[in-house]
């Protein structure tokens, strides 16, 4: 039986500084550090990510800008863990948040939304520190329209014993075709050799950047299936599938279906019920062919010589998922969540077939295209009019008063109170619970933390490292009382028998 599809989302945000006279602040690495440190200074002590690092990172509240730009900060890329179990850090000149490990796609949605709110609060915090007229903008998107792309990655727990080649062959058709449901839309084209006049709008932000079927790279020659093998848990039992092909979504429905449907497809692959017949002849060609085709009618060639549209591929996957629900159940993704995901997935496919605009309240590329086309019609704008690209960018703007995605009537699925809680409280059903609770209760005594261990200062040498190699151990059910009843980490560790 497929193992629980523990999952998470890592998002690299776009960042732009305006109105700053200080050139060093405008540098995106510095700006990202400033952004994160401003949030931490207001919210919590900075607990350093354990990166085989020498110095524990504990610092005081009440930062001034100069303090935040002190040499120590500049040379150490900010890398913090939050009390909700997430990681907040600078990666390749972008602020990035990795959600904590989540048991279901529903939790992943809530923590992804919480990550957005954390970035919004960070923007407000940094605004309080910058001189008047200067501001830091962040965008939840994947490209600047000029050929530079950054990712929204998903992670899924899969049993190690599943042959990786099976995963590659059988997940690729879903990765290539799911953009009709979860693509975020993009004005213009960034594929070498094709212009924005040829492709004024496409389904996916990321499709133009994928050049390989499978590989280790993430920053160039991007592969549809990434082979990174860093499970951050017991490597004998588990694989963490690191997925780089997706777009960042503003639609909550899209985020839920993106993670939920992919988890179900992976479960089918794990239980070896999916089969090979959907394999594509040329996935790299197909991913941009599908992205550039707004009619949703373009067929792509399968390995077996047949042709299929992206919608047809998605219908096939959904149908097999329905069969799998009946034969195996969906406990591994959460039975209720799985049922909800299948219902939404089906509704979106049916809507796209009948009349795409009918799913403008659920599908980002549809919502964005509607807005862009309506604006262009009203103002008689050419496809390469800068205002249309500005609409594309502002769809993803995290300033609440400027964000166009907040104004196009997208459905909200997550309870705002849950999102608010998830900014500071960890999920209860994975090891993130242990990490988040310990950080919140003993911020001065957690020297360092990462996905699979925490290091405590128990008041005397040596420091104590607690391994956390099982993603499903350290849940509220198993450790809440232990943590509640322990006054100190030393006591906790004694009770854990460590």
């Amino acid at each position, binding site marked *: 039986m497929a193992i629980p599809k523990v999952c998470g989302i890592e998002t690299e945000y776009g960042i732009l500084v305006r109105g700053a006279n200080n050139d060093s602040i405008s540098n995106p690495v510095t700006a990202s550090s400033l952004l994160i440190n401003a949030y931490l200074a207001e919210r919590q002590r900075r607990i350093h990510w354990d990166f085989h690092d020498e110095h524990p990172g504990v610092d005081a509240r009440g930062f001034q800008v100069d303090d935040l730009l002190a040499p120590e900060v500049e040379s150490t890329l900010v890398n913090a863990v939050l009390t909700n179990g997430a990681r907040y850090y600078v990666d390749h000149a972008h602020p990035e948040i990795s959600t904590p490990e989540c048991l279901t796609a529903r939790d992943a949605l809530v923590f992804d939304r919480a990550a957005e709110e954390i970035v919004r609060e960070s923007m407000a915090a940094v605004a309080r520190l910058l001189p008047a007229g200067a501001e830091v903008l962040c965008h939840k998107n994947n490209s600047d329209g000029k050929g530079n792309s950054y990712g929204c990655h998903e992670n899924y727990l899969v049993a190690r014993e599943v042959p990786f080649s099976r995963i590659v062959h059988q997940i690729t058709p879903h990765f290539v075709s799911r953009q009709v449901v979860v693509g975020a839309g993009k004005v213009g084209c960034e594929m070498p050799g094709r212009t924005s006049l040829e492709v004024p709008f496409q389904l996916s932000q990321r499709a133009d950047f994928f050049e390989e079927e499978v590989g280790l790279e993430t920053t*160039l020659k991007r592969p549809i299936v990434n082979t990174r093998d860093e499970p951050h848990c017991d490597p004998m039992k588990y694989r963490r599938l690191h997925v780089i092909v997706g777009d960042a979504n503003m639609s909550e429905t899209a985020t839920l279906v993106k993670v939920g449907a992919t988890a179900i497809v992976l479960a089918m692959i794990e239980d070896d019920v999916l089969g090979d017949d959907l394999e594509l002849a040329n996935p790299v060609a197909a991913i941009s062919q599908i992205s550039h085709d707004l009619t949703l009618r373009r067929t792509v060639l399968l390995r077996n010589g047949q042709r299929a549209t992206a919608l047809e591929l998605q219908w096939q996957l959904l149908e097999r998922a329905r069969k799998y629900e009946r034969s195996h159940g969906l406990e591994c993704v959460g039975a209720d969540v799985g049922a909800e995901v299948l219902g939404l997935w089906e509704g979106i496919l049916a809507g796209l077939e009948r009349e795409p605009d009918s799913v403008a309240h659920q599908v980002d590329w549809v919502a964005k295209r509607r807005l862009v086309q309506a604006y262009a019609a009203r103002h008689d704008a050419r496809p390469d009019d800068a205002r249309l690209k500005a609409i594309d960018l502002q769809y993803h703007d995290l300033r609440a008063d400027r964000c166009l995605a907040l104004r196009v009537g997208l459905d909200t699925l997550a309870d705002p109170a849950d999102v608010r809680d998830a900014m500071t409280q960890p999920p209860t059903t994975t090891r993130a619970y242990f990490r988040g609770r310990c950080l919140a209760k003993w911020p001065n005594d957690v020297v360092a933390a990462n996905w699979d261990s925490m290091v405590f200062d128990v008041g005397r040498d040596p420091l104590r490292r607690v391994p956390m190699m099982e993603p499903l151990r350290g849940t509220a059910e198993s450790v809440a009382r232990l943590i509640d009843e322990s006054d100190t980490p030393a006591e906790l560790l004694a009770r854990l028998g460590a």
Partner: protein
Amino acid sequence: MAERTQKQKPAPNRTEETTQEAPPVAASGEKLKAELDDLLDEIDDVLETNAEDFVKSYVQKGGQ
């Protein structure tokens, strides 16, 4: 939505099929159209004042 008929291999140029639910789609369609018109009315206040400068200045470093 879950009661909708499942498709095997849908033909591209189908005539419109009969569905059990009719008005809900139309109603939400009307609402969305009204919202879209409202948004278009106010969008110029929300959009960056100099779109060309903004788009030109929006440059990111490549990430993962």
